[in-house]
């Protein structure tokens, strides 16, 4: 579409000049070469600063990550600026041979799957529900979604941490209202399963607005006529959804699901802040694990190696996301 557009529209850019100069040909030939070269260089000049900036802050550190993961950089090398010793694949073999790494990876994957599934399921249900609400309820709900969406991660995490506070948390006091249940003073973070429930809650609560609002926008693209025709043909609500509605929103759904996988795999701030900036080992997800290795154990090379493994694990998902983008025509 764009290629056709630009090709169709590009000649007129030069075109309007041509008619004026169509008579005297030689002068145009004399002018053109210089114009053409600046014209061809211009886009590169325009994206130049962006390339340099991205290269400096992302590409170069990424190269550095790879280099560092083959070295052994500790606190001494960091401060003295000496080149750290080369250790080859030692960092990787050490990490891959460490049972803690596998436990952390397993935990990360489980956490991601739970969060993504819950986010997408609730998101889809709420989006479908939005279509069937009276206008005032929908506006109310949209307001709540936007407010939740705009809540800074740090603030949201603080609130949820307080909800689960053992002494003053509203969760405990509400649960204790149930007859026969005494949760007063219950510490949710002693048991990582319970702790992760709270962390998952803040992650899912924070992610739902984006999913709902995007899916709701996609649902408005479903032609009403098709839905009604399917209903007339005797399709039940589930049949209509599966055969008519879902195929239309599928590209958007897949896109958001892929993004959610990437985001939830990289959850960091929620755990980090929930545990007061020093998460216990049983709360380590890959991001935290890498951070702890680098900054608490001062083994920067191990930290980068773990980060690199994380990027590699995610690159498959990232490639899938890019292909989706290409397919739906966002790029070109």
């Amino acid at each position, binding site marked *: 579409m*764009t290629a056709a557009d*630009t090709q169709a529209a590009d000649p007129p*850019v030069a075109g*309007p*000049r041509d008619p004026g100069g169509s008579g005297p040909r030689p002068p145009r030939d004399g002018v053109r070469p210089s114009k053409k070269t600046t*014209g061809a260089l*211009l*886009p590169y000049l*325009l994206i130049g*600063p*962006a390339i340099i900036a*991205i290269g*400096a*802050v992302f590409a*170069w*550190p990424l190269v550095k*990550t790879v280099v560092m993961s083959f070295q052994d*950089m500790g606190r001494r090398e960091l401060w003295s600026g000496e080149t750290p010793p080369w250790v080859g694949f030692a960092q990787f073999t050490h990490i891959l041979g460490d049972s803690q790494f596998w436990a952390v990876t397993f935990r990360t994957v489980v956490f991601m799957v739970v969060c993504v599934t819950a986010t997408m399921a609730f998101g889809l249900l709420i989006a479908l*529900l939005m279509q*069937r*609400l009276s206008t005032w*309820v929908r506006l109310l*709900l949209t*307001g*709540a979604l*936007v*407010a939740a*969406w705009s*809540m800074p*991660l*740090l603030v949201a995490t*603080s609130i949820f*941490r*307080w*909800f689960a*506070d053992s002494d*003053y948390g509203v969760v405990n*006091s509400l649960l204790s209202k149930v007859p026969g249940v005494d949760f007063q003073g219950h510490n949710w973070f002693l048991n990582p399963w319970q702790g992760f429930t709270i962390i998952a809650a803040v992650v899912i*609560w924070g992610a*739902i*607005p984006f999913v709902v*609002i995007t899916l709701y926008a996609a649902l408005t693209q479903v032609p009403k*006529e*098709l839905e*009604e025709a399917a209903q007339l043909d005797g399709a039940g609500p589930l049949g209509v959804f599966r055969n008519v509605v879902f195929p239309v929103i599928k590209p958007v759904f897949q896109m958001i699901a892929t993004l959610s996988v*990437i985001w939830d795999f*990289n959850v960091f*701030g929620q755990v980090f802040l929930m545990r007061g900036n020093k998460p216990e080992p049983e709360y380590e997800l890959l991001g935290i694990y890498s*951070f702890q290795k680098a*900054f608490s154990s001062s083994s*920067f090379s191990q930290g980068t190696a773990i*980060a*690199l493994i994380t*990027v590699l694990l995610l690159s498959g998902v*990232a490639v899938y*996301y*890019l292909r989706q*983008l290409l397919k739906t*025509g*966002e790029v070109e």
Partner: protein
Amino acid sequence: MTTSTPATRETEARKKATAPERAVRPDRKPGRKPDCKPGRKRGREKNRLGYNILGLITFVVMAFPVYWLLVSAFRPNREIRSYDQPLWPNSITFDNFVRATETRFFWTAIQSSLIICVTSVLGAMLIGTIAAFAIGRFNFIGRKPFMMVLIMVQLLPPTAMLIPIYVQLNAMGALNEYWGVIVVYLVSVLPFTTWMIRGFVINVPKELEESAMVDGCTRMAAFWRVIFPLLAPGLAAASIFALITAWNEYLFAYILMQDNDKYTLNVWLMNFTTDRGTDYGGLMAGSVMIAVPVVIFFMIVQKKMAAGLTSGAVKG
């Protein structure tokens, strides 16, 4: 053969275009008016009540944390420090806000946050706009890879970049300096702003620029005089969005800044959490002060942002 095929294709296309309307309309409109209306409407109404109740429950769940934040910020401390807090406050006080603003480094934190966020967003907008103009208007070799880079950079986990960036800034002596954080923030919001502005660039008709150029403007002059004013709402939306992202960032500010008086607001907020316990009243008041501008800005731009993103998606 050659003449008949386009003709049949055309009629088929026309049929396709009108078919759904025809199939539904005669069924729906006359059917609704005479007899179906009362029963159908009542059924729908009944359903709607059920859905509305579900919708209200969802509303309560989604809004409760926000409500709790606001209520607690104004709740007196003795109520916060009780085991059984009522769901609505019995009295309202501004003590928490007073205490929060009197907390050490509050004013320097505001200053740091403003310096860092405004500078990085202005830089990102400048670089992003010209880059967005390039990929929105020109067809050049390397355009597609550049766009891929923009997307891929956003997929990189920030924690993966944290360590090498820290090491690099340390080597350059930029740790604990504003410019180190500014550069990091600038580049973190750059891909997104470029992508978003590109959506708005595409929406400005090419013809405008072309006619300006016919009238004797150079390409850059055409951009500044014709396109730029039309882009203004999009630029505003993108810049506010970038500002929100930078304003909310926590991790890099926490790691790259070491002096207390250079902490940004988000890092300052951690003052309320000590080993002896958490001052939830102060924390909530501080959170409100940080979140309110974000929420207001967000509400202003969210529609425009969606417009910018979808226009880019459809017309890419």
